[in-house]
Protein backbone atom coordinates (compact mmCIF):
# COMPACT_ATOMS: atom_id res chain seq x y z
CA UNK A 1 0.00 0.00 0.00
CA UNK A 2 2.95 2.32 -0.44
CA UNK A 3 1.11 4.45 -2.96
CA UNK A 4 -2.21 4.21 -1.18
CA UNK A 5 -4.37 6.80 0.43
CA UNK A 6 -2.36 9.69 1.70
CA UNK A 7 -4.97 12.29 2.65
CA UNK A 8 -6.20 10.48 5.73
CA UNK A 9 -8.26 12.71 7.97
CA UNK A 10 -6.46 13.22 11.23
CA UNK A 11 -8.29 11.65 14.10
CA UNK A 12 -9.81 8.87 12.07
CA UNK A 13 -8.57 5.57 13.45
CA UNK A 14 -6.43 3.52 11.12
CA UNK A 15 -8.13 0.30 12.11
CA UNK A 16 -11.46 1.46 10.75
CA UNK A 17 -9.85 2.30 7.43
CA UNK A 18 -8.33 -1.11 7.12
CA UNK A 19 -11.54 -2.94 7.89
CA UNK A 20 -13.41 -0.78 5.42
CA UNK A 21 -11.02 -1.80 2.73
CA UNK A 22 -11.47 -5.43 3.55
CA UNK A 23 -15.22 -4.99 3.27
CA UNK A 24 -14.89 -3.28 -0.09
CA UNK A 25 -13.09 -6.26 -1.54
CA UNK A 26 -15.88 -8.45 -0.25
CA UNK A 27 -16.60 -12.06 -1.06
CA UNK A 28 -17.63 -11.20 -4.62
CA UNK A 29 -14.31 -9.64 -5.48
CA UNK A 30 -13.18 -6.59 -7.41
CA UNK A 31 -15.02 -7.20 -10.66
CA UNK A 32 -18.38 -6.75 -9.03
CA UNK A 33 -17.55 -3.70 -6.98
CA UNK A 34 -16.16 -1.93 -10.02
CA UNK A 35 -19.49 -2.08 -11.84
CA UNK A 36 -21.29 -0.38 -8.99
CA UNK A 37 -21.29 3.43 -9.32
CA UNK A 38 -19.27 5.13 -6.62
CA UNK A 39 -21.43 6.07 -3.66
CA UNK A 40 -21.94 9.76 -2.98
CA UNK A 41 -20.26 10.84 -6.20
CA UNK A 42 -20.85 14.36 -7.44
CA UNK A 43 -20.81 14.99 -11.19
CA UNK A 44 -17.34 16.08 -12.33
CA UNK A 45 -18.13 19.49 -13.82
CA UNK A 46 -14.57 20.55 -14.67
CA UNK A 47 -13.69 17.40 -16.57
CA UNK A 48 -17.12 17.38 -18.20
CA UNK A 49 -16.58 20.91 -19.49
CA UNK A 50 -13.11 20.02 -20.76
CA UNK A 51 -14.48 16.99 -22.53
CA UNK A 52 -17.23 19.06 -24.14
CA UNK A 53 -14.67 21.57 -25.45
CA UNK A 54 -12.47 18.84 -26.90
CA UNK A 55 -15.53 17.19 -28.40
CA UNK A 56 -16.01 20.39 -30.40
CA UNK A 57 -12.34 20.36 -31.49
CA UNK A 58 -12.74 16.77 -32.72
CA UNK A 59 -16.16 17.11 -34.32
CA UNK A 60 -15.73 20.39 -36.24
CA UNK A 61 -12.94 19.13 -38.53
CA UNK A 62 -14.79 15.84 -39.08
CA UNK A 63 -17.98 17.72 -39.93
CA UNK A 64 -15.96 19.92 -42.29
CA UNK A 65 -14.38 16.85 -43.88
CA UNK A 66 -17.67 15.07 -44.60
CA UNK A 67 -19.69 18.16 -45.57
CA UNK A 68 -16.98 19.55 -47.87
CA UNK A 69 -16.70 16.21 -49.64
CA UNK A 70 -20.42 16.51 -50.49
CA UNK A 71 -20.33 20.17 -51.62
CA UNK A 72 -20.42 21.25 -55.25
CA UNK A 73 -17.31 23.20 -56.22
CA UNK A 74 -19.32 26.43 -56.74
CA UNK A 75 -20.83 26.02 -53.30
CA UNK A 76 -17.32 25.54 -51.84
CA UNK A 77 -16.09 28.79 -53.38
CA UNK A 78 -19.03 30.93 -52.29
CA UNK A 79 -20.15 29.50 -48.93
CA UNK A 80 -18.39 29.47 -45.57
CA UNK A 81 -16.52 26.21 -44.90
CA UNK A 82 -18.65 25.33 -41.88
CA UNK A 83 -21.99 26.44 -43.33
CA UNK A 84 -24.70 23.91 -44.02
CA UNK A 85 -24.58 23.29 -47.79
CA UNK A 86 -27.62 24.19 -49.89
CA UNK A 87 -27.38 21.00 -51.87
CA UNK A 88 -25.38 17.80 -51.62
CA UNK A 89 -23.67 16.05 -54.48
CA UNK A 90 -21.69 12.85 -54.99
CA UNK A 91 -19.79 14.35 -57.95
CA UNK A 92 -16.60 14.64 -55.92
CA UNK A 93 -16.62 10.94 -55.19
CA UNK A 94 -17.17 10.14 -58.85
CA UNK A 95 -14.20 12.37 -59.75
CA UNK A 96 -11.97 10.64 -57.21
CA UNK A 97 -12.71 7.28 -58.79
CA UNK A 98 -11.92 8.73 -62.21
CA UNK A 99 -8.39 9.75 -61.17
CA UNK A 100 -7.42 6.22 -60.18
CA UNK A 101 -8.50 5.93 -56.56
CA UNK A 102 -9.39 2.26 -56.96
CA UNK A 103 -5.84 1.47 -58.10
CA UNK A 104 -4.38 3.21 -55.03
CA UNK A 105 -6.85 1.36 -52.82
CA UNK A 106 -5.87 -1.99 -54.37
CA UNK A 107 -2.16 -1.19 -53.90
CA UNK A 108 -2.72 -0.31 -50.25
CA UNK A 109 -4.66 -3.52 -49.71
CA UNK A 110 -1.89 -5.60 -51.31
CA UNK A 111 0.77 -3.88 -49.21
CA UNK A 112 -1.31 -4.37 -46.05
CA UNK A 113 -2.10 -8.04 -46.64
CA UNK A 114 1.43 -8.76 -47.85
CA UNK A 115 2.98 -7.21 -44.75
CA UNK A 116 0.57 -9.01 -42.41
CA UNK A 117 1.26 -12.38 -44.06
CA UNK A 118 5.01 -11.92 -44.01
CA UNK A 119 5.08 -10.82 -40.36
CA UNK A 120 2.84 -13.66 -39.17
CA UNK A 121 4.77 -16.28 -41.15
CA UNK A 122 8.01 -15.50 -39.34
CA UNK A 123 6.79 -14.02 -36.03
CA UNK A 124 4.52 -16.83 -34.77
CA UNK A 125 7.24 -19.54 -34.97
CA UNK A 126 9.71 -17.06 -33.46
CA UNK A 127 7.39 -16.36 -30.53
CA UNK A 128 6.90 -20.12 -30.05
CA UNK A 129 10.68 -20.58 -29.86
CA UNK A 130 11.12 -17.62 -27.49
CA UNK A 131 8.51 -18.93 -25.07
CA UNK A 132 9.44 -22.62 -25.15
CA UNK A 133 13.12 -22.88 -26.07
CA UNK A 134 15.88 -23.03 -23.50
CA UNK A 135 18.54 -22.20 -26.07
CA UNK A 136 20.86 -19.27 -25.37
CA UNK A 137 20.82 -18.34 -29.03
CA UNK A 138 17.06 -17.92 -28.96
CA UNK A 139 17.28 -15.66 -25.95
CA UNK A 140 19.93 -13.63 -27.74
CA UNK A 141 17.61 -13.41 -30.76
CA UNK A 142 14.83 -12.06 -28.56
CA UNK A 143 17.20 -9.41 -27.25
CA UNK A 144 17.91 -8.37 -30.85
CA UNK A 145 14.19 -7.82 -31.42
CA UNK A 146 13.94 -5.78 -28.24
CA UNK A 147 16.87 -3.72 -29.49
CA UNK A 148 15.03 -3.39 -32.81
CA UNK A 149 12.11 -1.69 -31.07
CA UNK A 150 14.49 1.23 -30.78
CA UNK A 151 15.37 1.76 -34.44
CA UNK A 152 13.46 4.70 -35.95
CA UNK A 153 12.39 3.78 -39.51
CA UNK A 154 12.83 7.36 -40.75
CA UNK A 155 16.49 7.38 -39.83
CA UNK A 156 17.48 4.32 -41.87
CA UNK A 157 15.53 5.15 -45.00
CA UNK A 158 18.73 5.80 -47.01
CA UNK A 159 20.31 2.33 -46.48
CA UNK A 160 16.89 0.78 -47.13
CA UNK A 161 16.76 2.69 -50.41
CA UNK A 162 20.25 1.31 -51.18
CA UNK A 163 19.25 -2.28 -50.37
CA UNK A 164 15.97 -2.08 -52.32
CA UNK A 165 17.63 -0.62 -55.42
CA UNK A 166 20.39 -3.28 -55.27
CA UNK A 167 17.70 -5.97 -55.12
CA UNK A 168 16.12 -4.41 -58.23
CA UNK A 169 12.89 -3.91 -56.32
CA UNK A 170 12.67 -0.11 -56.64
CA UNK A 171 9.20 1.12 -57.60
CA UNK A 172 7.42 -2.14 -56.78
CA UNK A 173 4.91 -2.99 -54.06
CA UNK A 174 7.35 -5.58 -52.68
CA UNK A 175 9.72 -2.69 -52.01
CA UNK A 176 7.14 -1.25 -49.57
CA UNK A 177 6.12 -4.58 -48.04
CA UNK A 178 9.63 -5.73 -47.01
CA UNK A 179 10.66 -2.77 -44.81
CA UNK A 180 7.11 -2.26 -43.50
CA UNK A 181 7.06 -5.87 -42.31
CA UNK A 182 10.58 -5.61 -40.88
CA UNK A 183 9.78 -2.52 -38.83
CA UNK A 184 6.55 -3.92 -37.40
CA UNK A 185 8.23 -7.25 -36.62
CA UNK A 186 9.76 -6.41 -33.20
CA UNK A 187 6.46 -5.29 -31.62
CA UNK A 188 4.68 -8.23 -33.27
CA UNK A 189 7.15 -10.69 -31.75
CA UNK A 190 6.76 -9.04 -28.33
CA UNK A 191 2.94 -9.14 -28.49
CA UNK A 192 2.82 -12.77 -29.67
CA UNK A 193 5.38 -13.80 -27.08
CA UNK A 194 3.42 -12.26 -24.23
CA UNK A 195 0.18 -13.86 -25.43
CA UNK A 196 1.85 -17.30 -25.66
CA UNK A 197 3.40 -16.85 -22.19
CA UNK A 198 -0.12 -17.19 -20.77
CA UNK A 199 -0.41 -20.77 -22.08
CA UNK A 200 0.19 -23.17 -19.16
CA UNK A 201 3.25 -25.38 -19.55
CA UNK A 202 1.19 -28.49 -18.68
CA UNK A 203 -0.49 -28.30 -22.08
CA UNK A 204 2.87 -28.60 -23.85
CA UNK A 205 3.97 -31.38 -21.52
CA UNK A 206 0.77 -33.32 -22.12
CA UNK A 207 1.30 -33.17 -25.86
CA UNK A 208 4.93 -34.21 -25.48
CA UNK A 209 3.85 -37.21 -23.42
CA UNK A 210 1.54 -38.17 -26.28
CA UNK A 211 4.65 -38.24 -28.46
CA UNK A 212 3.81 -35.17 -30.53
CA UNK A 213 6.62 -33.70 -32.62
CA UNK A 214 7.47 -30.01 -32.28
CA UNK A 215 5.70 -29.08 -35.50
CA UNK A 216 2.58 -30.92 -34.30
CA UNK A 217 2.69 -28.96 -31.06
CA UNK A 218 3.00 -25.81 -33.15
CA UNK A 219 0.05 -26.64 -35.43
CA UNK A 220 -2.34 -28.11 -32.88
CA UNK A 221 -1.53 -26.08 -29.76
CA UNK A 222 0.38 -22.87 -30.53
CA UNK A 223 -1.55 -21.74 -33.61
CA UNK A 224 -5.03 -22.07 -32.07
CA UNK A 225 -3.96 -20.54 -28.75
CA UNK A 226 -2.15 -17.58 -30.28
CA UNK A 227 -5.27 -16.34 -32.07
CA UNK A 228 -5.92 -13.25 -29.91
CA UNK A 229 -2.30 -12.21 -30.29
CA UNK A 230 -2.44 -12.89 -34.02
CA UNK A 231 -5.47 -10.64 -34.52
CA UNK A 232 -3.82 -7.84 -32.52
CA UNK A 233 -0.64 -8.17 -34.57
CA UNK A 234 -2.51 -8.36 -37.88
CA UNK A 235 -4.35 -5.12 -37.14
CA UNK A 236 -1.22 -3.40 -35.87
CA UNK A 237 0.77 -4.35 -38.98
CA UNK A 238 -2.15 -3.64 -41.31
CA UNK A 239 -2.70 -0.15 -39.89
CA UNK A 240 1.00 0.60 -40.12
CA UNK A 241 1.11 -0.49 -43.73
CA UNK A 242 -2.11 1.40 -44.50
CA UNK A 243 -0.84 4.67 -43.00
CA UNK A 244 2.81 4.42 -43.93
CA UNK A 245 4.04 7.37 -45.90
CA UNK A 246 7.81 7.47 -45.95
CA UNK A 247 8.55 4.00 -47.38
CA UNK A 248 6.25 4.46 -50.40
CA UNK A 249 7.46 8.06 -50.76
CA UNK A 250 11.09 7.02 -51.06
CA UNK A 251 10.80 3.53 -52.60
CA UNK A 252 8.18 4.04 -55.34
CA UNK A 253 7.53 6.68 -57.95
CA UNK A 254 5.08 5.65 -60.66
CA UNK A 255 1.31 5.86 -60.57
CA UNK A 256 0.90 2.09 -60.90
CA UNK A 257 2.59 1.52 -57.52
CA UNK A 258 1.03 4.48 -55.71
CA UNK A 259 -0.59 3.66 -52.35
CA UNK A 260 -3.40 5.64 -50.72
CA UNK A 261 -1.49 8.16 -48.54
CA UNK A 262 0.70 9.10 -51.50
CA UNK A 263 -2.40 9.12 -53.70
CA UNK A 264 -3.98 11.72 -51.40
CA UNK A 265 -0.86 13.84 -51.55
CA UNK A 266 -0.57 13.61 -55.32
CA UNK A 267 -4.25 14.52 -55.61
CA UNK A 268 -3.55 17.63 -53.57
CA UNK A 269 -0.52 18.66 -55.63
CA UNK A 270 -2.24 17.96 -58.96
CA UNK A 271 -5.70 19.33 -58.25
CA UNK A 272 -4.77 21.81 -55.51
CA UNK A 273 -7.92 23.90 -55.81
CA UNK A 274 -10.28 20.93 -55.79
CA UNK A 275 -10.56 20.73 -52.00
CA UNK A 276 -14.00 19.01 -52.10
CA UNK A 277 -12.48 16.28 -54.28
CA UNK A 278 -9.55 15.91 -51.87
CA UNK A 279 -11.93 15.60 -48.92
CA UNK A 280 -13.91 12.93 -50.78
CA UNK A 281 -10.66 11.02 -51.30
CA UNK A 282 -9.82 11.35 -47.60
CA UNK A 283 -13.27 10.05 -46.60
CA UNK A 284 -12.93 7.09 -48.96
CA UNK A 285 -9.45 6.29 -47.64
CA UNK A 286 -10.83 6.12 -44.09
CA UNK A 287 -13.86 3.93 -44.88
CA UNK A 288 -12.11 0.54 -44.55
CA UNK A 289 -10.72 1.51 -41.14
CA UNK A 290 -14.12 2.90 -40.12
CA UNK A 291 -15.67 -0.46 -41.01
CA UNK A 292 -13.08 -2.16 -38.80
CA UNK A 293 -13.90 0.29 -36.00
CA UNK A 294 -17.62 -0.43 -36.23
CA UNK A 295 -17.37 -4.21 -36.46
CA UNK A 296 -14.25 -5.01 -34.48
CA UNK A 297 -13.72 -2.08 -32.17
CA UNK A 298 -12.04 -4.11 -29.45
CA UNK A 299 -9.58 -5.75 -31.85
CA UNK A 300 -8.85 -2.45 -33.59
CA UNK A 301 -8.08 -0.66 -30.33
CA UNK A 302 -5.90 -3.51 -29.07
CA UNK A 303 -4.03 -3.50 -32.38
CA UNK A 304 -3.50 0.24 -32.11
CA UNK A 305 -2.10 -0.01 -28.63
CA UNK A 306 -0.16 -3.18 -29.43
CA UNK A 307 2.41 -3.87 -26.76
CA UNK A 308 0.91 -1.34 -24.37
CA UNK A 309 -2.63 -2.61 -24.02
CA UNK A 310 -1.81 -5.07 -21.27
Amino acid at each position, binding site marked *: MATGIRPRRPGQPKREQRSARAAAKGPLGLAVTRLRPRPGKRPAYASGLGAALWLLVVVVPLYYLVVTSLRGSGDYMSQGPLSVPESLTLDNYVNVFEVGFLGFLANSLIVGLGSITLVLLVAVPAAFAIVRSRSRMVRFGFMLFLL*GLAVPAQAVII*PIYLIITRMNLYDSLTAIILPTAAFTLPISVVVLTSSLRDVPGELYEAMALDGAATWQVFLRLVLPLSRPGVSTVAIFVGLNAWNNFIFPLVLTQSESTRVLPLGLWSFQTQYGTDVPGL*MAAVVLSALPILALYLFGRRQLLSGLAAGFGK
Partner: protein
Amino acid sequence: MSSSPTERPGFAWITPALLFFALFGLGPVVVVGYLSFTSWSGLGDPEWVGLANWSALPGDGQVRGGLAITLSLTVLCWVTQTPLALAFGVWAAGPQKSRAVVSAIFFLPLLLSTAAIALVWQALFEPHFGIPAQLEDWFGLTPSNVLGDPTWALYAIVFVLLWQFLPFHMLLYQAAARQVPHSLYEAAELDGASGFQRFLHITVPQLRHTVIASSVLILVGSMTYFETVLLLTAGGPGNATRILPLHMYEQGFVSFEMGYASAIAVLLVILGTGLSLLVVRVTGYSRMSSQREGL
Protein backbone atom coordinates in the same frame (compact mmCIF):
# COMPACT_ATOMS: atom_id res chain seq x y z
CA MET B 1 8.61 -34.94 -16.14
CA SER B 2 10.55 -36.77 -18.82
CA SER B 3 10.64 -34.44 -21.78
CA SER B 4 11.11 -35.96 -25.19
CA PRO B 5 13.86 -34.42 -27.35
CA THR B 6 11.29 -33.14 -29.85
CA GLU B 7 9.29 -31.18 -27.32
CA ARG B 8 11.16 -27.87 -27.32
CA PRO B 9 11.58 -25.79 -30.48
CA GLY B 10 15.15 -24.88 -31.33
CA PHE B 11 16.93 -21.93 -32.88
CA ALA B 12 15.63 -22.84 -36.34
CA TRP B 13 12.18 -21.57 -35.39
CA ILE B 14 13.40 -18.04 -34.80
CA THR B 15 15.93 -17.98 -37.66
CA PRO B 16 13.65 -16.75 -40.49
CA ALA B 17 12.41 -13.85 -38.36
CA LEU B 18 15.96 -12.95 -37.32
CA LEU B 19 17.40 -13.14 -40.83
CA PHE B 20 14.61 -11.00 -42.21
CA PHE B 21 14.93 -8.47 -39.43
CA ALA B 22 18.71 -8.40 -39.76
CA LEU B 23 18.45 -7.59 -43.46
CA PHE B 24 15.84 -4.81 -43.26
CA GLY B 25 15.96 -3.67 -39.65
CA LEU B 26 19.34 -3.91 -37.96
CA GLY B 27 21.49 -4.19 -41.09
CA PRO B 28 20.47 -0.73 -42.33
CA VAL B 29 21.69 0.77 -39.04
CA VAL B 30 25.18 -0.56 -39.79
CA VAL B 31 24.95 0.50 -43.44
CA VAL B 32 23.85 4.04 -42.57
CA GLY B 33 26.96 4.34 -40.40
CA TYR B 34 29.11 3.25 -43.35
CA LEU B 35 27.32 5.58 -45.79
CA SER B 36 27.97 8.55 -43.51
CA PHE B 37 31.66 8.24 -44.47
CA THR B 38 30.91 8.22 -48.20
CA SER B 39 29.74 10.47 -50.95
CA TRP B 40 26.83 8.96 -52.85
CA SER B 41 24.29 10.47 -55.21
CA GLY B 42 21.92 7.50 -55.11
CA LEU B 43 23.26 6.14 -58.42
CA GLY B 44 26.43 4.13 -58.88
CA ASP B 45 28.61 3.19 -55.92
CA PRO B 46 29.22 5.17 -52.73
CA GLU B 47 32.72 6.70 -52.61
CA TRP B 48 34.71 6.75 -49.37
CA VAL B 49 35.37 10.33 -48.25
CA GLY B 50 36.38 9.76 -44.65
CA LEU B 51 35.17 12.33 -42.16
CA ALA B 52 34.14 14.95 -44.74
CA ASN B 53 30.40 14.65 -44.03
CA TRP B 54 30.92 14.65 -40.29
CA SER B 55 33.15 17.70 -40.29
CA ALA B 56 30.55 19.54 -42.39
CA LEU B 57 27.78 18.85 -39.86
CA PRO B 58 28.60 21.43 -37.16
CA GLY B 59 28.85 24.22 -39.73
CA ASP B 60 25.41 23.45 -41.19
CA GLY B 61 23.02 26.02 -39.76
CA GLN B 62 20.05 23.87 -40.72
CA VAL B 63 21.38 20.99 -38.63
CA ARG B 64 21.72 23.19 -35.56
CA GLY B 65 18.42 24.93 -36.29
CA GLY B 66 16.80 21.60 -37.08
CA LEU B 67 17.94 20.12 -33.80
CA ALA B 68 16.53 23.10 -31.91
CA ILE B 69 13.19 22.94 -33.74
CA THR B 70 12.98 19.16 -33.29
CA LEU B 71 13.59 19.67 -29.58
CA SER B 72 10.95 22.43 -29.27
CA LEU B 73 8.44 20.34 -31.20
CA THR B 74 9.11 17.34 -28.94
CA VAL B 75 8.75 19.34 -25.73
CA LEU B 76 5.63 21.15 -26.94
CA CYS B 77 4.04 17.85 -27.97
CA TRP B 78 4.80 16.31 -24.60
CA VAL B 79 3.49 19.31 -22.67
CA THR B 80 0.22 19.35 -24.60
CA GLN B 81 -0.43 15.64 -25.08
CA THR B 82 0.45 14.15 -21.70
CA PRO B 83 -1.80 16.14 -19.32
CA LEU B 84 -4.77 16.12 -21.70
CA ALA B 85 -4.43 12.41 -22.47
CA LEU B 86 -4.16 11.60 -18.78
CA ALA B 87 -7.19 13.70 -17.86
CA PHE B 88 -9.40 12.51 -20.73
CA GLY B 89 -8.21 8.91 -20.45
CA VAL B 90 -9.14 8.71 -16.78
CA TRP B 91 -12.40 10.53 -17.51
CA ALA B 92 -13.22 8.07 -20.30
CA ALA B 93 -12.52 5.11 -18.00
CA GLY B 94 -15.56 6.05 -15.89
CA PRO B 95 -18.52 3.68 -15.99
CA GLN B 96 -21.03 6.28 -17.29
CA LYS B 97 -22.72 5.51 -20.61
CA SER B 98 -22.37 9.14 -21.78
CA ARG B 99 -18.60 8.97 -21.33
CA ALA B 100 -18.42 5.81 -23.42
CA VAL B 101 -20.29 7.55 -26.24
CA VAL B 102 -18.17 10.73 -26.11
CA SER B 103 -14.90 8.82 -25.94
CA ALA B 104 -15.95 6.74 -28.95
CA ILE B 105 -16.11 10.07 -30.82
CA PHE B 106 -12.76 11.14 -29.34
CA PHE B 107 -11.20 8.05 -30.91
CA LEU B 108 -12.38 8.92 -34.44
CA PRO B 109 -9.15 10.71 -35.51
CA LEU B 110 -7.44 7.33 -35.10
CA LEU B 111 -9.24 6.19 -38.24
CA LEU B 112 -7.48 8.74 -40.44
CA SER B 113 -3.95 8.32 -41.74
CA THR B 114 -1.25 10.88 -40.99
CA ALA B 115 -1.41 12.10 -44.57
CA ALA B 116 -5.20 12.46 -44.44
CA ILE B 117 -5.09 14.44 -41.18
CA ALA B 118 -2.37 16.76 -42.44
CA LEU B 119 -4.29 17.46 -45.67
CA VAL B 120 -7.59 18.11 -43.85
CA TRP B 121 -5.93 20.55 -41.46
CA GLN B 122 -4.11 22.26 -44.27
CA ALA B 123 -7.49 22.93 -45.86
CA LEU B 124 -8.87 24.10 -42.51
CA PHE B 125 -5.96 26.52 -41.95
CA GLU B 126 -6.32 27.93 -45.48
CA PRO B 127 -7.03 31.67 -45.03
CA HIS B 128 -9.58 32.20 -47.84
CA PHE B 129 -11.67 29.02 -47.71
CA GLY B 130 -10.83 27.51 -44.33
CA ILE B 131 -11.73 28.36 -40.75
CA PRO B 132 -10.20 31.88 -40.92
CA ALA B 133 -12.73 32.73 -43.67
CA GLN B 134 -15.55 31.35 -41.52
CA LEU B 135 -14.40 33.43 -38.55
CA GLU B 136 -14.41 36.48 -40.81
CA ASP B 137 -18.01 35.70 -41.80
CA TRP B 138 -19.15 35.29 -38.22
CA PHE B 139 -17.08 37.80 -36.25
CA GLY B 140 -15.40 40.01 -38.86
CA LEU B 141 -11.90 38.84 -37.90
CA THR B 142 -9.20 39.49 -40.49
CA PRO B 143 -8.18 36.10 -41.93
CA SER B 144 -4.61 35.15 -41.08
CA ASN B 145 -2.42 32.49 -42.65
CA VAL B 146 -1.25 30.52 -39.63
CA LEU B 147 0.89 28.06 -41.58
CA GLY B 148 2.64 30.89 -43.42
CA ASP B 149 3.56 32.69 -40.22
CA PRO B 150 7.09 31.94 -38.87
CA THR B 151 5.95 32.31 -35.25
CA TRP B 152 2.69 30.38 -35.47
CA ALA B 153 3.47 27.61 -37.95
CA LEU B 154 5.19 25.42 -35.34
CA TYR B 155 2.29 25.83 -32.90
CA ALA B 156 -0.14 24.92 -35.65
CA ILE B 157 1.84 21.71 -36.22
CA VAL B 158 1.84 20.98 -32.48
CA PHE B 159 -1.93 21.41 -32.48
CA VAL B 160 -2.45 19.08 -35.44
CA LEU B 161 -0.21 16.46 -33.80
CA LEU B 162 -2.22 16.84 -30.59
CA TRP B 163 -5.44 16.30 -32.55
CA GLN B 164 -3.95 13.23 -34.19
CA PHE B 165 -2.22 11.56 -31.24
CA LEU B 166 -4.35 12.48 -28.23
CA PRO B 167 -6.79 9.59 -28.82
CA PHE B 168 -3.98 7.05 -28.91
CA HIS B 169 -2.49 8.16 -25.60
CA MET B 170 -5.96 8.56 -24.14
CA LEU B 171 -6.56 4.93 -25.05
CA LEU B 172 -3.48 3.86 -23.10
CA TYR B 173 -4.57 5.82 -20.02
CA GLN B 174 -8.17 4.64 -20.28
CA ALA B 175 -7.09 0.99 -20.34
CA ALA B 176 -4.69 1.50 -17.44
CA ALA B 177 -7.19 3.50 -15.36
CA ARG B 178 -9.68 0.64 -15.60
CA GLN B 179 -7.08 -1.63 -14.02
CA VAL B 180 -6.78 0.48 -10.87
CA PRO B 181 -8.41 -1.56 -8.08
CA HIS B 182 -11.66 0.06 -7.07
CA SER B 183 -11.11 -0.73 -3.41
CA LEU B 184 -8.44 1.98 -3.31
CA TYR B 185 -11.00 4.61 -4.28
CA GLU B 186 -13.58 3.36 -1.85
CA ALA B 187 -11.10 3.48 1.00
CA ALA B 188 -10.10 7.02 0.02
CA GLU B 189 -13.71 8.04 -0.12
CA LEU B 190 -14.30 6.80 3.40
CA ASP B 191 -11.34 8.97 4.35
CA GLY B 192 -13.16 11.94 2.84
CA ALA B 193 -10.79 12.50 -0.09
CA SER B 194 -12.25 14.76 -2.78
CA GLY B 195 -12.44 13.69 -6.41
CA PHE B 196 -9.39 15.71 -7.30
CA GLN B 197 -7.44 14.35 -4.33
CA ARG B 198 -8.32 10.81 -5.37
CA PHE B 199 -7.11 11.60 -8.89
CA LEU B 200 -3.85 13.07 -7.62
CA HIS B 201 -3.04 10.57 -4.88
CA ILE B 202 -4.45 7.32 -6.27
CA THR B 203 -4.95 7.51 -10.03
CA VAL B 204 -1.72 9.28 -10.99
CA PRO B 205 0.61 7.13 -8.84
CA GLN B 206 -1.16 3.97 -10.00
CA LEU B 207 -0.75 5.05 -13.63
CA ARG B 208 2.87 6.06 -13.40
CA HIS B 209 4.08 3.21 -15.61
CA THR B 210 1.61 4.32 -18.26
CA VAL B 211 2.67 7.95 -17.84
CA ILE B 212 6.29 6.94 -18.43
CA ALA B 213 5.49 4.63 -21.35
CA SER B 214 3.25 7.19 -23.03
CA SER B 215 5.78 9.99 -22.44
CA VAL B 216 8.63 8.07 -23.96
CA LEU B 217 6.42 7.10 -26.89
CA ILE B 218 5.83 10.81 -27.45
CA LEU B 219 9.57 11.52 -27.23
CA VAL B 220 10.43 8.74 -29.66
CA GLY B 221 7.43 9.52 -31.85
CA SER B 222 8.61 13.09 -32.31
CA MET B 223 11.31 11.66 -34.59
CA THR B 224 8.51 10.53 -36.88
CA TYR B 225 6.48 13.74 -37.13
CA PHE B 226 8.30 14.20 -40.42
CA GLU B 227 5.24 13.43 -42.57
CA THR B 228 2.97 15.93 -40.88
CA VAL B 229 5.56 18.68 -41.22
CA LEU B 230 6.31 17.78 -44.85
CA LEU B 231 2.63 17.93 -45.81
CA LEU B 232 1.63 20.97 -43.73
CA THR B 233 4.53 23.38 -44.24
CA ALA B 234 7.36 21.46 -45.97
CA GLY B 235 9.66 23.07 -43.39
CA GLY B 236 8.57 26.62 -44.08
CA PRO B 237 8.01 29.46 -43.91
CA GLY B 238 11.74 29.86 -44.42
CA ASN B 239 13.23 27.28 -42.09
CA ALA B 240 10.75 27.90 -39.27
CA THR B 241 9.54 24.30 -39.09
CA ARG B 242 12.43 22.44 -40.74
CA ILE B 243 12.90 19.61 -38.25
CA LEU B 244 15.99 17.43 -38.50
CA PRO B 245 14.33 14.38 -40.16
CA LEU B 246 12.95 16.69 -42.85
CA HIS B 247 16.40 18.20 -43.43
CA MET B 248 17.78 14.67 -43.75
CA TYR B 249 15.08 13.70 -46.25
CA GLU B 250 15.72 16.78 -48.37
CA GLN B 251 19.49 16.32 -48.35
CA GLY B 252 19.07 12.67 -49.38
CA PHE B 253 16.15 12.60 -51.78
CA VAL B 254 15.94 16.15 -53.10
CA SER B 255 19.62 17.20 -53.25
CA PHE B 256 20.85 13.56 -53.60
CA GLU B 257 23.64 14.14 -51.06
CA MET B 258 23.00 10.71 -49.60
CA GLY B 259 26.33 10.46 -47.79
CA TYR B 260 25.77 13.72 -45.96
CA ALA B 261 22.13 12.79 -45.29
CA SER B 262 23.39 9.54 -43.75
CA ALA B 263 25.51 11.49 -41.27
CA ILE B 264 22.35 13.37 -40.19
CA ALA B 265 20.55 10.01 -40.08
CA VAL B 266 23.16 8.63 -37.68
CA LEU B 267 22.44 11.59 -35.40
CA LEU B 268 18.76 10.65 -35.57
CA VAL B 269 19.48 6.98 -34.86
CA ILE B 270 21.47 7.95 -31.78
CA LEU B 271 18.69 10.24 -30.57
CA GLY B 272 15.89 7.81 -31.38
CA THR B 273 17.65 4.69 -30.14
CA GLY B 274 18.72 6.33 -26.91
CA LEU B 275 15.15 7.35 -26.19
CA SER B 276 13.66 4.01 -27.27
CA LEU B 277 16.06 1.96 -25.16
CA LEU B 278 14.59 3.99 -22.34
CA VAL B 279 11.14 2.71 -23.40
CA VAL B 280 12.30 -0.88 -23.20
CA ARG B 281 13.83 -0.30 -19.79
CA VAL B 282 11.01 1.57 -18.14
CA THR B 283 8.11 -0.40 -19.59
CA GLY B 284 9.78 -3.65 -18.56
CA TYR B 285 9.25 -5.34 -21.92
CA SER B 286 12.08 -7.76 -21.24
CA ARG B 287 10.93 -8.49 -17.71
CA MET B 288 7.18 -8.66 -18.42
CA SER B 289 6.58 -7.48 -14.89
CA SER B 290 3.19 -6.59 -13.54
CA GLN B 291 2.26 -2.93 -13.46
CA ARG B 292 -0.09 -3.29 -10.56
CA GLU B 293 1.21 -1.90 -7.35
CA GLY B 294 -0.23 -1.01 -4.01
CA LEU B 295 -2.19 -4.20 -3.39
